[in-house]
Every structure is written in C-alpha cells, then in structure tokens.
C-alpha cells in the first residue's frame, strides 16, 4: 500500500500543468481580453534547430509589445505574450495550438515559423475562429485557401519564387538553373518555383539539391557548371548557401546568383563565405529593409539587447519587430471594444501600412490575406547593402 503516495505524487506532478487555472473570461465574453489585458499566444519553435524562426522572432515581437505596454498598452490594455513550443513538429504544433486556444484561452495567435508545423496546426486554429497573424511560415498552404481569421505578414513562398525567376530574367539570364533543399521549407518554395518556370515556358538547365547541413557543395557546383547557366536560383538556408557560394567561388563558377529571404543578412553571409569578392554577383530578396548593422536599426538593437541580453540583433529579431508592429496597429484600430471579429475586419482592410522594416507596405484585402507582397532585391556594395529593385506582385 505504500505505493499509493508515490503514484499520487507522480500523477499530480504530471497532471498539474494541465490543470493550470483557466484564464478568466472577460466581461464581454471575448476570450483573452479583460479590462486591462490582451492575451496573445506565440506559436513557434523554442527548441530544436527551428528556434531561429520561433524564439528569435518572438523576442523581436516581445520587445515591441513591451514598448507598447510601457506607454499604457493598447486602449489601456497591456499585451501579455504566452509562448508555446511547436519544435517545428506537426504533432507538437497541434498540441501547442490547442493548449493556447483551450487552456490559455488566448485572444489571438501570433507565430508560425516552420511550414509543416503551421500547416498541421491550421485546421485546429481555423475551426476555433481565433485570429492568427503568421510571422514567418512561407508555405502557401498556411494562408491558402484564404481562411477568415488567418493572415500573414511573411512573404509567401509563391511570391518570392516567382520574383526570383522574374529577377533572373530581368538581369538578362536566358539559361537559369536551380539549387534547392529537399526539406519542408525548401519544397514549399521549390514547387511554386517550378510552376513559375512553367508559366514562363522555361525549363531550368540544371536542378540540383543540397542538404541543410552539408559541408561540401563540390558535386553541386560541378554539375551546375556543366550546364553553363547565366543565373542560379538558390533555395537554401544560410549554412548550405554559404558552403555553396564558397565552393562556387573556389571552382571559379560565377554566374548571377539569386537568393531569397532566408539569406537576407548579406553581411552575415559574407562573413560565412569568407572569401573576398565571393558575393560580387549575388543578389537576394530580403524580408527586411535594413541589415541589423544599419544605424536606422539602432533603436531596436538597444531594445532587443536590453530585454534579451543573449541576443545580438538579427534579421530574425527584426522580422518579429515588424510583424508585431502590424499586430499592435490593428489592435489599436480595432478599438476599445475588442472582439475577434473586429480584429479580423481591421486586418482585412489594412492598407499600405508602413512598418519601416519590411521593404514595402503591408496590405490585406478580405480575399487576400497574404499581406506582404513586396520582395526587395538587395546587393552588397562595399560594406553597404543596396536595394537594386523592388517588385510588387499583384494578383
């Protein structure tokens, strides 16, 4: 019989977190909103390799919310951020979304880093009619078909991929090759890229692959070089891209190279490649207008490093700052009597909103919830990042 206390202790230890007091419902009955508080759920990876697209973005967002709270909050309500980890895993993401919605009873969600995790969690969130502003997941399936309460401030994969090909052709490239990563992130971009090729009736002259953790890109570079392309479209993470650019430079392969927003920090990439002039013909899309080193970003650097001493301001932080700025703006516009429907309506009519971080403006419509449609191409000249072209995709 002496086992009972032990069993009870284990049972209590395991169930306690589930029994955490349920957030009190507000007077008007909107979950997560009280007289002096708005509860926002942050959904994304806090652990595992995907934390860059979760924790670091959330840190940027939290800085914005903290600043708003310091000046009295939104219509007198302080923003409370509740984070839950999705580990970039489908099952964990569903659990995290359910916990935020049913246990923490948050007013809205802000998050979504990894595409497959977000795609898996979407039906649950959609069913619950909880507003969700996606901050980083680029897969089109997260936002399409349009769901009434789901909006995105991340540049959708289809938009970026189309822009990459468009840009290659603007640079006069006739022969275009592709190097991509075969993971969820890479495929979310690769598939629309192939559709863009088809729409233009062009076939890639080479189509190579590289793994995210590869330390050598010699086979890839040799095969690409054989195809003799004018431009290579790069669908790789920073590490793979740096290895690829290093080996391309080493082997004297110098076509026009076209990156996407994961390679938005050109100064960091240059340091990783570590061969002088390797980025001479490298262009990339950036989600943000400035690199973290830019004096314009000094304010955010100070704030991020104050609230999160372990962080050194990165493009990931800046993506969070920009997305949270949008969230705060629509919360303000939704007014004192905050409801989920009001927030949705304000999001749906947000037009030409300038965050001063995203290269372009944020505009949603009731039918198009991919609110960020401005891929800006950047190039490094000396130590300065120069915008070489902004394409606004219209649909």
């Amino acid at each position: 019989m002496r086992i009972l206390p032990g069993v009870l202790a284990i049972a209590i230890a395991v169930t306690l977190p589930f029994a955490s007091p349920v957030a009190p419902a507000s007077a008007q009955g909107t979950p997560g909103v009280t007289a002096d508080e708005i509860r926002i759920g942050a959904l994304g990876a806090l652990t595992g390799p995907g934390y860059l697209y979760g924790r670091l973005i959330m840190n940027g967002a939290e800085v914005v919310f903290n600043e708003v709270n310091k000046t009295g909050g939104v219509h007198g309500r302080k923003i409370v951020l509740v984070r839950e980890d999705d580990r970039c895993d489908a099952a964990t993401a569903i659990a995290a979304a359910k916990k935020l919605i049913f246990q923490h009873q948050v007013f809205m969600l802000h998050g979504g880093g990894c595409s497959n995790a977000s795609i898996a969690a979407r039906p649950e969130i959609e069913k619950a009619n909880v507003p969700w502003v996606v901050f980083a997941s680029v897969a089109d399936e997260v936002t399409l078909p349009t769901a009434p309460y789901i909006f995105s401030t991340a540049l959708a994969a289809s938009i970026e991929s189309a822009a990459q090909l468009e840009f290659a052709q603007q640079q006069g490239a006739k022969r275009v090759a592709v190097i991509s990563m075969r993971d969820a992130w890479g495929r979310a971009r690769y598939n629309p890229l192939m559709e863009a090729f088809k729409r233009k009736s062009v076939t890639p002259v080479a189509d190579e692959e590289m793994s995210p953790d590869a330390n050598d890109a010699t086979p890839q570079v040799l095969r690409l070089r054989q195809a003799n392309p004018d431009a290579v479209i790069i669908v790789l993470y920073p590490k793979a891209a740096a290895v690829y650019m290093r080996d391309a430079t080493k082997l004297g392969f110098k076509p026009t190279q076209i990156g996407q927003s994961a390679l938005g920090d050109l100064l960091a990439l240059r340091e990783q490649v570590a061969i002088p002039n390797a980025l001479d013909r490298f262009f990339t899309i950036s989600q943000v207008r400035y690199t973290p080193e830019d004096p314009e970003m000094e304010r955010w650097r100070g704030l991020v490093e104050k609230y999160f001493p372990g962080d050194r301001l990165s493009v990931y932080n800046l993506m969070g700052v920009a997305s949270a700025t949008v969230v705060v703006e629509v919360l303000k516009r939704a007014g004192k009597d905050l409801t989920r429907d009001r927030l949705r309506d304000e999001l749906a009519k947000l037009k030409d909103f300038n965050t001063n971080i995203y290269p372009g403006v944020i505009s949603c419509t009731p039918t198009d919830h991919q609110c960020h449609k401005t891929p800006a191409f950047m190039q490094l000249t000396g130590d300065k990042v120069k915008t070489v072209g902004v394409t606004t995709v219209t649909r």
Partner: protein
Amino acid sequence: MPALAGRRNVVVLAVLALAALPAMANPYILYVANIALIYAILAVGLNLLLGYAGQFAFANAALFGIGAYATGLFQVRLGLSFWAAFPAAVVFTTLVGLVVALPALRLSGLYLALVTLAFAQLTQWVMLNWERVTFGAGGFRVPPLTFGALAPALGLYYLTLLLTGLLVAAAWNTVRSGVGRALVAVRDSEVAAESLAIDLARHKAIAFSLSALYAGVAGGLYSALLSFVAPEGFDLFQMVVQFSMVVVGGLGSVWGSVLGAGLLVGLQEALRAFKGAQEIAFGLLLMACIIFLPDGLISLVKRRARGWDEPLRAPDRPA
C-alpha cells in the same frame, strides 16, 4: 488475496478513468491523452523487440512512419476508406518489418544498430524524394475521419483506447507464452537458446514483425489524429523518444512500457512550463531516471506493491 494496489485493480481503474476522461477534459487534454495512448502501443511493441528479444534496432520510428504514410496514402492515392486503408497499412508495415529482419538475423550489436539506422535514413529519403507517391517533404493532408453521431476527436480517442487495450493485452499474453520465453532465451544467450532447440531466426523474425505490427497500428492512428503526414515526425528524435519510453518504463516489462509512454508524453507537455529550456529539463530527467531507476519505473511499483510480478525477469546486467 490480491493486493488493493495490485495490477488488476490498477488496470481496471486506469481504463475506467481513461474512458471517462473525455467527459471532463478540454480538447487539448483529450489530444494529449490520445497521443499518449498511441505511444503506449509503440513502446509496448518496441519493448517486445528491445526488452524481450534484446535486439538493439533503430527501425521503429521509420516503421511508425511507414504505418502513418501507408494509412494516409492508401486513402489519398487509392481512394480507400480509412477502415480499409488502416488494416492494409498494418499488414504492409508488418511485411516491411519482416524484410528488415532479414539482414538483422545475421547481425548483432553495433552492426545491427547501424544497418537499422541506415534503413531509417533510407525511409526518410524515400518519404522526401519519391514525390509522385509520398508528396515529398511538404507532406499531405489526410481526409478527416468521421464516426457517425460521435464527434471525430472523441471517436478516434475511443478507437485508440480500444486498440491500445487489445494490443497491450495481446503483448501481455505473448510474453507469458512459449514465444515470450523463447525471445528471452534468445536475448540472454543465443548459444544457450539454440541448444534448447529454439529457432533463432524464426524468433528474431517474430519479434521484428510484432514490433512492426504495433508500429503500423500506432502510425495509422497517428495519421488520423493529425490529419496530416510529413517526414519530420519520424526521424531520429522520434526513435530516441520511443527508446526512452521503453527504458524509463522498464526493459522487458509490458506494463512498464505503458507507464513510460504515459509518463513521457505527459512530461513533454508538462515541461512546456520551461519555455525553451525543455531540452535541458528533458535531458536531465531522462538521465536521472536511467541512473536512479536502472530497472525502470516499474521496478518502483514492484518494490512497493504486491501483485505486479511478471513472469520473466529484466535483462541481465553483465557482471
């Protein structure tokens, strides 16, 4: 006289509590409970292979994935209903498990570990690259399941509960049968087992296919629960989680695996409170369990309560 906290009483109580859970749980807790039941199936199946037959193989996460993929793909690609796709997928996964067993019969120790690890990598690669069939890295949606008048989440929960009950009972009967004793004999000494006229190859194959069958059932239920299948969930991390459940619960103990699965799923959710430090907390707890409870949680129960004896002892510790 059976003890009050004896096995039968506790199991009956636990089943009653699980059956009544949906009445008082919110959708989040119901989901976590459903996941825990699925892992109980996985852990019990893996324990048959690892704890009883002593085969240190890395294939279970891949087989779990194959079960999930097959259940989903039979529905999406072949237009079968879940009720046809699911059993077909279980048969398919069991056959794959049998194929994996073929090279395994000749190998042991690290070499077995490496070959099954290679099999796991190959499975991931096929899931990623055979896009015309598997939809590739982006995964695919599985049509949501309906249960007539019953809410889908509830129906699936009871289906999972039923299958978990059946499979745990089946495992319990297996380990008490001649097959179970033969597996343990193979584990403890292949030479001694052979000299007792135990067919090594046959019994290893039985262990591999049994664990594959359990993984197939778990995979099918998992695909229905998530309504989404993608390669990421079936990687090495998944394998580590399953190993941990078996070892933390107790090697060579069916009830230990059930306990380990419940505890680890609960723990992973409970550790959410650590916000970003879960990796550290999980690692520390895992180490603590292995170091301080070398024979698993079940040894704690056995020591404190009567009526939990199991017919076969845990694997020997080399002197």
